């Protein structure tokens, strides 16, 4: 145990930090992009408040387009774009862009289905009060959808952790990559188990947090 710790402690710690970096930064941007996209999808779809066939179809297609490409391929497909945006295509910095590009449409879809469950009548009530659409979106639609949004984001963040496991492909490290490269390639079985355990604990915590939040918000 002691030996294991002194040999792998710092490696695992570094990987944990990398995972945290990748997940938090990528999630931040994914929500920043995905949430508005989800809102736009909901508003512009048929019978939505701002029904607009063209915007809806365009966005819908774009989102599907990106979501069609498995992350492992996307990672390389958008390399030039990544380089352009952040100046590098390797390391934690280089993997953030593909992670965001991969997760944002997923978040958008999850948001869309969460927002679609909000009662039309309530939205109408606020429209009737002459409240502007952005305010309705934030204070009514998103507010009412919070329980579903919490569950959706938990789902997205877990998917994101899965994607970071592939981050090793471009040298970004992280727990998933540690499990893969040490566990598989070097048969350091104990490292593999430890990292998987860490991942499980991480996800379990996130999910509990998400469930807890959803339950607290679901005040019906």
């Amino acid at each position, binding site marked *: 145990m002691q030996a294991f710790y002194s040999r792998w402690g710092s490696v695992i710690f570094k990987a944990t930090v990398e995972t945290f970096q990748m997940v938090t930064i990528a999630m931040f941007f994914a929500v920043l992009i995905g949430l508005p996209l989800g809102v736009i999808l909901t508003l512009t779809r048929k019978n939505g408040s701002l029904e607009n066939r063209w915007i809806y179809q365009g966005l819908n297609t774009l989102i599907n387009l990106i979501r069609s490409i498995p992350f492992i391929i996307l990672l390389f497909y958008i390399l030039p774009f990544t380089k352009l945006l952040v100046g590098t*295509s390797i390391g934690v910095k280089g993997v953030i862009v593909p992670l965001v590009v991969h997760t944002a449409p997923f978040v958008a879809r999850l948001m869309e289905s969460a927002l679609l469950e909000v009662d039309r009548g309530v939205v109408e009530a606020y429209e009737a009060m002459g409240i502007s659409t952005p305010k309705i979106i934030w204070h009514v639609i998103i507010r009412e959808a919070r329980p579903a949004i919490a569950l959706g984001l938990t789902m997205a963040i877990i998917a994101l952790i899965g994607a970071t496991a592939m981050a090793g492909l471009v040298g970004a490290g992280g727990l998933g990559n540690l499990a893969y490269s040490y566990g598989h390639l070097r048969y350091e079985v104990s490292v593999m188990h430890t990292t998987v355990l860490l991942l499980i604990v991480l996800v379990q915590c996130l999910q509990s947090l998400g469930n807890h939040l959803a339950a607290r918000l679901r005040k019906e």
Partner: protein
Amino acid sequence: AVTPLDPQHLTVGVTAGPHEEILEKVKEIAARDGVEIDIQVFTEYVMPNIALAEGELDINSFQHQPYLDNFKSERNLELVDVASTVIFPMGIYAAEYSDVSHIQQGDLIGLPNDPTNGARALILFESAGLITLKEGVGVAATVNDIAANPLDLRFIELEASQIPRQLDELAAAAINANFAIEHGYVPTEDTIFIEPGDSPWVNVIAVRTGHENDEAVKRFIEYYHLDEVRQFIGEHFQGSIVAAW
């Protein structure tokens, strides 16, 4: 016109696994002289070259000579190899057969799914007389380039590191020695066919063209080629990986 590399600080790309482990040893040695080596670990075989070509890396050490040559010509990259490193001898292993000649009609044969080892495996099968490859495909060979397959063997590309675990489901498979040893195989005894000694599959250290004579590169090669490293390879990989300098 190229600015020489900083001799005190090098960024080196490797693939996860033996290359990484060896480089960790090198890093340890270099550190004694105050030379800082930053290891970038990759788990696939394209990015280390791209990153090197684009200046994200100073040096990489993960590929064998034929792969580098092929990669350079396909993508027009200005890369050059500066020194040899190690060889991972590859052999054909089988759970039940004791000789390649026992391989039967329609057998399932495993080979690594990564390009540096995949083509090599196919060439190994060719030299074992199991198949013939198309004229001139060389080191870019894939399972689609098999010209003749008299036994109608079914080839299946698998994750290199996992092939030993799946060997009992296959009739035979090409496995790198390092992965075989991890699973308790002894390459010299358990192979039913092994690469000839004069292997062209020597791994190399690559840099961008123009840096081949940099002081920094030379110092790096020196560290790599120390006996201490050779000794480490010998002990750690127990013959499954051989120093090739």
